[in-house]
């Protein structure tokens, strides 16, 4: 250290202070700019709220939302108060629409891979991107289009394209509902999901259907549930949930019954057995239906005592449920989730839905009602293609060109499906999405798609409320990226149409508008067709009655004898746990994980956020020497494994582990990549024997301790004096 004398010391201090003053007083540029419009848009005023009705960005059951915009920026998503399916309410995922719209990691421009196997992408323009697409997608290669559950005009255009290319269109849904659709077809003889009139029912008997959170049309059913519980002038409805792991809906049930997975069909038939044997409902009600499915004889081997052992549901419980269900009519029996993700899934579903025919609630208010079908020009969202067809792609991969839009099969299909290899070997792969995903990381060409809030579209609602419900989607802001809508891209590459509307449409906007004017242009004859179109956009859709409901078939086309015992991958001694994957209400099956709001929204039961966890019964955990947050490897019979932390949950049965899907993304944005693990990847390729759908809850697993602990990010940190109070903090009354 140099010698510090007084002179040098003072100079040093003055210099430092002076420097500080200069820095401190230097004025930052505090000018704020305010821009004027060049041409003021007609419907917009500076600083004023402007609301646009459009389709929700993150759910596919047909929710219409209104988006609040201020000065051309989307601010808030709210339910469309006029739309019958959600009536001003929204699902938690819909709320995040503005967040994915303004997400910093959206794909911004078309990109071409420089060479196969590398991650080296170059930015290209749309003209060359469309050239590459038109040149490589289609003959001489087999063309395969893989999309999510698209519907409406987009689906119509896609079917023209695939017809002209002679290709196939596969619809990918991560937690496949093929079995549900098949069981509806068998029992009611219809393609469209019927209207389950929960709002007017007195009893709901749900086999694993998380209808308040994720099943079919949860917002509609939640609103109905409100009336079911506390509707004016009626008794409070009773909800019974039968499932292998308590779902969010299960946690709201009055009676929650544990069942060994795969035995839902048997228990449903046993309830039918009790109703028939004890004559709880008159034979005139169930006689014909029972005859069609095999008669009393077929039902004979489903006595409660015979079913109780394997199913884990006591004969007592079965009888109680049968009595309650028969005496609280109208009532509804539904199935979903793990109940249908079994090797006997669609037959189990049919057995459950058959209960509605046994008690005579079909076609009655408060029961199961038919839906009238969509207008021809606006097809319903397409049903998923069974897993077996995706697995079969592996056979002739090299001769294929694959176009994937709004789906991520490389993430969601089990490793055992070999889909990643299919993509690697395929002649040409193009992926179109809003965000990078695992499928697009295999693509030769990546096309950025517009966000749903930036594009035109129309949709018909599958699980409607007994009416024909059509919704419209319009841009609410100018596009944030150089993306295009899927429909626009298809219109650009489809060689020829003979559909009048599509021939004269160069853009999705035109196609949707002309389709709507053809259908509803004379809705109000006092105004012009174009004014009718504007009115449709303002309301968000069309949903008056008028269409003739398709009638259900008079009797079920199913046989009780076709219900087989379930089979599982992995034997019980070696793989002691039944692995039940489930969808959380917020993150869903992975596509929504890019949104930090949804990642941070706690799972209702465990309150875990941001990561994947393994739910296990506290006593089992204790026996294994595991405590909260201990890392374990979940190992499936396929040999694949994932690593996650333990959550000891009192609502999980001793031989079950529950693992949420949607984690472990390798591609996406800054908030989802590397969070948690992907349980879908380790599943065995078990399929529903009737449909080939993935039986995603038919895999067993074992746990291996890792020897590390990682605290789970839960919302259980509130230090609240109510926890010290005697008894339950939530007051409970029995009346």
């Amino acid at each position: 250290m140099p010698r510090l004398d007084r002179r040098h010391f003072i100079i040093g201090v003055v210099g430092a202070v002076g420097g500080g003053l200069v820095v401190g007083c230097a004025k930052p540029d505090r000018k704020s700019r305010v821009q004027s419009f060049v041409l003021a848009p007609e419907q917009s005023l500076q600083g004023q709220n402007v609301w646009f009705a459009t389709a929700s960005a993150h759910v596919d059951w047909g929710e219409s939302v209104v988006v609040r915009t201020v000065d051309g920026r989307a601010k808030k998503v709210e339910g469309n108060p006029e739309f019958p399916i959600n009536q001003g309410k929204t699902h938690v995922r819909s709320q995040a629409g503005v967040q994915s719209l303004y997400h910093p990691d959206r794909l911004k421009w078309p990109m071409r891979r420089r060479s196969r196997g590398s991650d080296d992408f170059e930015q290209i323009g749309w003209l060359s991107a469309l050239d590459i697409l038109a040149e490589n997608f289609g003959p001489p290669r087999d063309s395969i289009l893989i999309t999510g559950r698209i519907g409406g005009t987009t689906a119509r255009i896609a079917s023209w394209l695939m017809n002209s290319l002679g290709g196939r269109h596969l619809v990918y849904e991560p937690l496949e509902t093929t079995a549900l659709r098949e069981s509806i077809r068998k029992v009611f003889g219809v393609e469209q999901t019927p209207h389950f009139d929960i709002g007017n029912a007195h009893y709901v008997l749900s086999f694993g259907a998380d209808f308040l959170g994720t099943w079919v049309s949860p917002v509609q059913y939640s609103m109905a549930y409100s009336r079911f519980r506390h509707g004016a002038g009626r008794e409070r409805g009773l909800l019974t949930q039968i499932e292998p792991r308590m779902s969010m809906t299960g946690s709201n049930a009055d009676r929650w019954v544990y069942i060994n997975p795969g035995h839902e069909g048997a228990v449903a038939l046993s309830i039918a057995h009790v109703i028939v044997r004890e004559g709880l409902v008159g034979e005139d009600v169930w006689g014909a239906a029972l005859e069609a499915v095999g008669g009393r004889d077929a039902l004979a081997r489903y006595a409660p005592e015979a079913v109780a052992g394997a199913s884990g549901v006591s004969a007592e419980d079965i009888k109680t449920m049968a009595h309650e269900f028969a005496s609280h009519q109208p009532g509804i029996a539904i199935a979903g989730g793990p109940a249908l993700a079994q090797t006997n899934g669609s037959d189990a579903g049919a057995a459950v839905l058959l209960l509605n025919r046994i008690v005579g609630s079909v076609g009655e208010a408060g029961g199961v009602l038919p839906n009238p079908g969509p207008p021809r020009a606006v097809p319903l969202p397409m049903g998923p293609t069974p897993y077996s067809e995706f697995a079969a792609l592996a056979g002739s991969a090299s001769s294929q060109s694959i176009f994937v839009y709004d789906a991520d099969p490389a993430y969601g299909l089990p490793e055992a499906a070999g889909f990643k290899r299919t993509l690697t070997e395929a002649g040409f792969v193009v992926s179109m999405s809003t965000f990078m995903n695992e499928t697009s990381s295999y693509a030769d060409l990546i096309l950025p798609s517009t966000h749903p809030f930036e594009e035109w579209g129309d949709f018909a609602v599958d699980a409607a409320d007994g009416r024909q419900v059509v919704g419209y989607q319009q841009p609410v802001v100018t596009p944030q990226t150089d993306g295009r809508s899927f429909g626009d891209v298809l219109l650009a590459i489809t060689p020829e149409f003979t559909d009048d509307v599509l021939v004269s449409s160069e853009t999705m906007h035109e196609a949707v508008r002309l389709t709507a004017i053809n259908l509803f242009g004379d809705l109000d004859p006092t105004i012009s067709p174009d004014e009718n179109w504007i009115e449709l956009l303002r309301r968000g859709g069309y949903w008056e009655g008028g269409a003739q409901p398709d009638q259900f078939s008079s009797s079920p086309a199913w046989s009780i004898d076709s219900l087989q015992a379930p089979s599982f991958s992995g034997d019980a001694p070696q793989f002691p746990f039944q692995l039940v994957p489930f969808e959380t209400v917020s993150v869903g099956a992975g596509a929504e994980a890019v949104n930090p709001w949804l990642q941070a929204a706690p799972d209702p039961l465990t309150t875990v956020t941001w990561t994947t966890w393994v739910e296990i019964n506290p006593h089992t955990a204790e026996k294994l020497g595991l405590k909260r947050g201990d890392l374990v490897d979940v190992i499936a019979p396929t040999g694949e494994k994932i690593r996650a932390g333990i959550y000891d949950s009192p609502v999980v049965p001793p031989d079950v582990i529950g693992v949420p899907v949607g984690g472990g993304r390798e591609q996406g944005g800054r908030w989802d990549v590397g969070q948690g693990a992907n349980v879908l990847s380790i599943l065995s390729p078990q399929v529903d024997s009737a449909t080939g759908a993935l039986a995603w809850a038919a895999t067993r697993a074992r746990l291996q301790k890792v020897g590390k602990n990682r605290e789970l990010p839960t919302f259980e940190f509130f230090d609240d004096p109510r926890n010290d109070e005697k008894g339950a903090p939530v007051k409970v009354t029995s009346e």
Partner: protein
Amino acid sequence: MESIRALLPRLTLRQLVVLSGIGVVLGAGGIATAAVLIFLGARGGTLRPAPEQPIAFDHARHAGELGIPCEFCHRGVETQAAATIPSLEQCMFCHAVVGKENPEVQLLAAHWEEGRAVDWVRVHRLPDHVRFVHEAHILAGLECSTCHGEVPTMKVVKQVENLNMGMCMACHREMSASLDCATCHK
């Protein structure tokens, strides 16, 4: 202890006293300066000179000589929170015909033809935690000049009032308007 002492400069007692003295003086000076700045700030020390605008729009000409009412251009003032700045289209209603020889009008026309917005510099601005609504104040009968001064005489618009909370409160008290914090603070 030893090791720490080794790192310190070796000062004599005298040096130490002088050093502490300087410290005290600087500290007191800092507090005094801060107090003066806060006082000036509270008195409206934030008033800044009139900014230079990308187009030298002359309020004295429009609002003064020509007598165009404020709300003719600032159309939101009676109906919503923001008074709003007119669109170029609105300027061009007149300037497509009049004042074409004026270089500033030519600048405006150039923006219009290129479809380019004008980056006006904001003159009046309230902090983010204040919710000011023009509509309510105009409906209560206030004149624009109460807060904005005699704009019709200003060639270049400049902030003339402090627009600080004291000013708001004084007026709210006088007019028996709401004194609840939540009325204005968001």
